[in-house]
């Protein structure tokens, strides 16, 4: 029983990192229907900036994270202005191609910096001894991940349901022409979505870096884990990103805890979530929380 609970707890912790990584992806898709293939690169850049600020500039790690999130806000806005804005009005598939190119450009740029070949860890900033609840163990880094996820999601939920700008972002997702007719700036909304995506990616990169160390390919790979999460949860649902993230996290842990022993070489944790995903999509093609079209006759 303790073993089972341990897997669940670790699953929730890992899953909340996935949720954090997926949030930005969902925001961009929700407002502009663009699938962002550069999410992994944003995660990596956010983590590297935090590392640079704390190790080279010698700042406090939390301050570094806050500054990095601020810088990534600017980077997100910049990316939208330079790469995405000229594409407004073009077919969605072309815009998605641009994000694939963007991924290559960003990782290419990282290779010009010392971060391209860096393998490092954040200076330790948390107690080494993990938290214990009875027999269940939780690493401090995992707790930080859960807290950051909770903070980001609360802020976003508040923003999207209470602030007029947030509601306008959802309106743009619904009907761009009608939003224009009352003076919503589509460009501003898209830029904000990219900025928010870059910010939550930074938080995800920070947690992943704290847990597994900083290394370009590893961080980018987290971006790929986003796909099963958002497809499971529904591409345009924040709640879906959370539930999808945590579900994938738990499934991964359960699979590697219980199934790995029967499979030579292990690695079922990587595969099992996708099996569930395929089965689920047969019954819920929009994902668990995806928006269905409202049709009135």
């Amino acid at each position: 029983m303790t073993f089972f609970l341990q897997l669940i707890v670790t699953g929730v912790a890992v899953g909340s990192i996935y949720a954090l990584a997926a949030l930005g992806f969902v925001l961009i898709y929700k407002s502009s229907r663009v699938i962002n293939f550069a999410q992994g690169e944003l995660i990596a850049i956010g983590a590297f900036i935090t590392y640079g600020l704390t190790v080279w500039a010698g700042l406090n790690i939390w301050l570094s994270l806050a500054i990095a999130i601020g810088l990534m806000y600017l980077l997100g806005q910049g990316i939208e202005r330079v790469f995405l804005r000229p594409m407004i009005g073009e077919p969605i598939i072309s815009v998605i191609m641009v994000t694939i190119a963007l991924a290559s450009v960003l990782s290419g740029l990282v290779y010009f910096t010392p971060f391209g070949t860096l393998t490092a860890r954040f200076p330790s900033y948390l107690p080494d001894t993990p938290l214990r609840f009875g027999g269940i163990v939780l690493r401090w880094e995992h707790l930080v991940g859960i807290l950051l996820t909770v903070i980001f999601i609360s802020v976003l939920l508040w923003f999207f349901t209470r602030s007029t700008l947030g509601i306008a972002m959802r309106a743009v997702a619904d009907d761009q022409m009608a939003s224009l007719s009352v003076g919503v700036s589509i460009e501003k909304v898209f830029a904000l979505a990219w900025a928010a995506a870059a910010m939550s990616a930074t938080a995800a990169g920070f947690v992943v870096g704290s847990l597994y160390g900083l290394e370009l390919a590893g961080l980018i790979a987290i971006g790929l884990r986003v796909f099963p999460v958002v497809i499971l949860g529904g591409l345009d649902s924040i709640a879906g990103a959370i539930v999808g993230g945590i579900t994938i996290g738990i499934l991964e842990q359960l699979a590697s805890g219980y199934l790995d022993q029967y499979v030579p070489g292990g690695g079922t944790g990587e595969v099992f979530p996708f099996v569930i995903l395929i089965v689920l999509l047969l019954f819920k093609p929009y994902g668990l929380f995806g928006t269905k079209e409202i049709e009135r006759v």
Partner: protein
Amino acid sequence: MTEVATTASRPQEFGEIQLEVNNIEVVYHDIVQVLRGVSLMIPKGKIVALLGTNGAGKTTTLRAISGLLKPENGQVREGYIKFAGQMIHQRSGQAIVKAGIVQVPEGRRVFKHLTVEENLRVGSITRRDVQAVREDLARVYEIFPALTRLRHRQAGYTSGGEQQMVAIGRALMANPKLLLLDEPSLGLAPLLVRDIFERVKAVNKEGTTILVVEQNASIALGVADYGYVMEQGRIVLEGPAAELKNNPDVKEFYMGMTEGGGRKSFKEIKSYKRRKRWM
């Protein structure tokens, strides 16, 4: 017919001109010319109707005024549009909303996944005067009391008439000086159409100028002060609404009535010859 004879016959005589559309030509995709020299004058505080058949260029005229041509790859190539003394035909849609012109798009286009109240709030996106926005929200619920009990319902699950109210209410939340309505009667039952036009009149009474595009000529001329008729990208006829209502051609082409006042039979289609002379 005992219409009170109004002495005014030109738009200027109805009041100070708030919007002047001067001889504009609109071209889509740099090649398709839709408007060929359209001129309109809209007196402040009045209701003006813009009539015409499908494809006459009515919606394009509205878009030219509200700055919504650009998303459709259209542009005003000739002429100018002047609103409250300022040239606006090169401005962005957002700037035009801020200047005080808001268009209610054809087919309502409510935000289906947002609640009724959220729809209304989006209308206030360009405004910073929080207190006045709150008052305007209350005012919209006053004009459309039916929306009050629907405020937390997803707009996609309200009826067509309710959606039209949401769309108009949403535009009112931007506090427009000039409201552009594109076919508010589209797809609504006659009783609802009359209701919507009553509300439009009420909005106008509070001081908002209204330009309404309609295919339902009789109801539009019923509330309007002045009217324009468009065909093939041109204004072909204009005059005080009371006069247009009694114009035999308007009656025949847009209200489907014969000179005798009865309903027109589809057998008498020779009128197309007379109509051709206009174009």
